[in-house]
């Protein structure tokens, strides 16, 4: 396997979109936490599938159908291997990470009753809050939320463990917060949850592809993530588990592909994991995603992580030099995922994002689908910059220059 220099042009050159300009300036893409840009190999693999192999999966006998099925199932095997998961039969392919969480929440509905408890954290993305709100409404289950320190961004681990009790059926938490960057001690939470007989779901949307993530080490029963935050196509997500655990979920979407035998008034389900994959899936995305994982492994996940830690350090230092910004989340660059969110009392996040965009700098402004988290911070919105393998130190400098320009524009 070739070795790539993470901060070098070798990596950047693989991402064609990075060559474009925005408002006449080179694109400075600092919104990887929303979606990562795609390398040429992924774009090409998706096109090659459409050009040469397109067919529906599983039912077909003809050559194209066999090739398409091979590509689709190849993705399942590749993801299981990438995460060190027990095997492809524990991997369900979904539309995105949100769909995977909904699949678990609705799939567990038949096991929950009034008074059962679901333990989450207040730093969750709405994707790991709302499906449980809906489940609680339908079943009478009770939601409990562990807090975090608004100064350090640290999860109240002791508090969370205290919330876990004999009625706890599921514990859900985010691996890396998409606003604070906090990396949560998933294994410790999982241990406490398992002692209480509860299942554990970890939202790994911000960690997979950005740091080494090993399914067995996290200790979670369910791990979810999206391909598009991991340099792959949109429209593809994963629920990673074990066949035995998936057996506990009721399939909630019925249709083709997920059945074994259908009568007019009865049906039996296909084996795991196919019973959770009703209808035609996004085969082109599945055919292309392994190319993203190949690139990440060629660079090496520890090197990817080191690169993002270096960018965290650079960003915190650069933003602090500007003065007057409130950076949220952990101080230690090694204690956060590859992102920095901040509040500038002089420039509202929406104004900030609009103005820095005129300098070609793409950042995200708003509540980042984490309104309860922002309430704990005492903020309505933040501005977030996030990185990937292609981000450079110069781009952080460009961000700082653009923030200074925004302040001048607003007369601050």
């Amino acid at each position: 396997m070739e070795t790539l220099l993470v901060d070098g042009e070798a990596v950047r050159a693989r991402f064609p979109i990075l060559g474009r300009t925005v408002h006449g300036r080179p694109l400075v893409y600092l919104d990887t936490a929303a979606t990562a840009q795609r390398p040429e190999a992924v774009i090409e693999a998706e096109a090659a599938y459409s050009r040469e192999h397109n067919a529906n999966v599983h039912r077909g006998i003809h050559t194209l159908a066999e090739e398409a099925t091979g590509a689709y199932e190849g993705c399942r095997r590749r993801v299981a291997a990438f995460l060190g998961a027990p095997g492809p039969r524990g991997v369900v392919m979904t539309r995105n990470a949100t769909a995977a969480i909904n699949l678990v929440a609705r799939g567990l509905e038949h096991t929950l009753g009034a008074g059962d408890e679901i333990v989450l954290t207040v730093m969750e993305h709405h994707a790991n809050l709302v499906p449980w709100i809906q489940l609680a409404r339908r079943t009478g289950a009770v939601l409990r939320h562990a807090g975090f320190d608004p100064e350090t961004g640290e999860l109240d681990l002791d508090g969370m463990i205290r919330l876990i009790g004999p009625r706890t059926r599921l514990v859900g938490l985010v691996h890396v917060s998409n606003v604070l960057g906090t990396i949560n001690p998933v294994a410790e939470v999982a241990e406490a949850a398992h002692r209480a007989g509860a299942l554990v779901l970890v939202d790994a949307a911000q960690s997979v592809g950005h740091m080494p993530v090993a399914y067995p080490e996290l200790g979670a029963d369910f791990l979810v993530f999206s391909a598009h935050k991991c340099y792959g196509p949109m429209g593809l997500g994963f629920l990673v588990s074990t066949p035995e655990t998936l057996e506990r979920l009721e399939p909630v979407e019925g249709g083709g592909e997920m059945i074994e035998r259908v009568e007019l008034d009865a049906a039996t389900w296909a084996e795991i994991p196919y019973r959770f994959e009703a209808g035609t899936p996004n085969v082109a995305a599945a055919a292309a995603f392994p190319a993203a994982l190949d690139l990440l492994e060629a660079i090496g996940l520890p090197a990817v992580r080191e690169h993002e830690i270096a960018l965290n350090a650079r960003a915190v230092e650069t933003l602090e030099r500007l003065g007057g910004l409130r950076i949220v989340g952990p101080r230690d660059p090694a204690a956060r995922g590859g992102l920095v969110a901040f509040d500038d009392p002089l420039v509202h996040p929406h104004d900030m994002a609009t103005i820095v965009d005129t300098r070609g700098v793409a950042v995200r402004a708003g509540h980042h689908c984490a309104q309860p988290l922002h309430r704990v911070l005492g903020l309505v919105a933040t501005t977030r910059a996030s990185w990937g393998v292609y981000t450079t130190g110069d781009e952080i400098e460009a961000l700082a220059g653009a923030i200074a320009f925004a302040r001048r524009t607003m007369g601050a």
Partner: protein
Amino acid sequence: MSTIPLDELYREVILDHHRHPRGRKPLAHPDVEAAGLNPSCGDEVTLQLELDGDRIADVAVLGRGCAVSTASGSMLAELIRGRTLDEARAIAERFREVMHGEAAPEEVDLGDLEALTGVRKFPVRIKCALLPWVTLLDDALARAGEADRD
């Protein structure tokens, strides 16, 4: 490659309203209070109206928002104070039509609000400009109508 007309978004009159927003003092005895939310950014605005019959005797626009929504709220406070409910509704409807591209700004007299029409070049920010006005139209004026009848 076009450069984006930033100075059309942040015109001097908008920045002035943003730095010195009018109507920021909470009313002691509001007859009507209405809250509006911009779900895309989470910004919240609270409108308070004090009524004298069908006339708006005083108005307050509270909450922290971006420069565009703050300036828009400040202009709202200036424009509707002393107006009747129907007059306020007419201004709000006119402004909404212009911002949604259903009427040209030169067809209607918008006063200071004309400065906000540059926001139309930034489609994602139109909601910011409309937040206080939509809150006025959809919530505050409906409540005011009821309060007036009581």
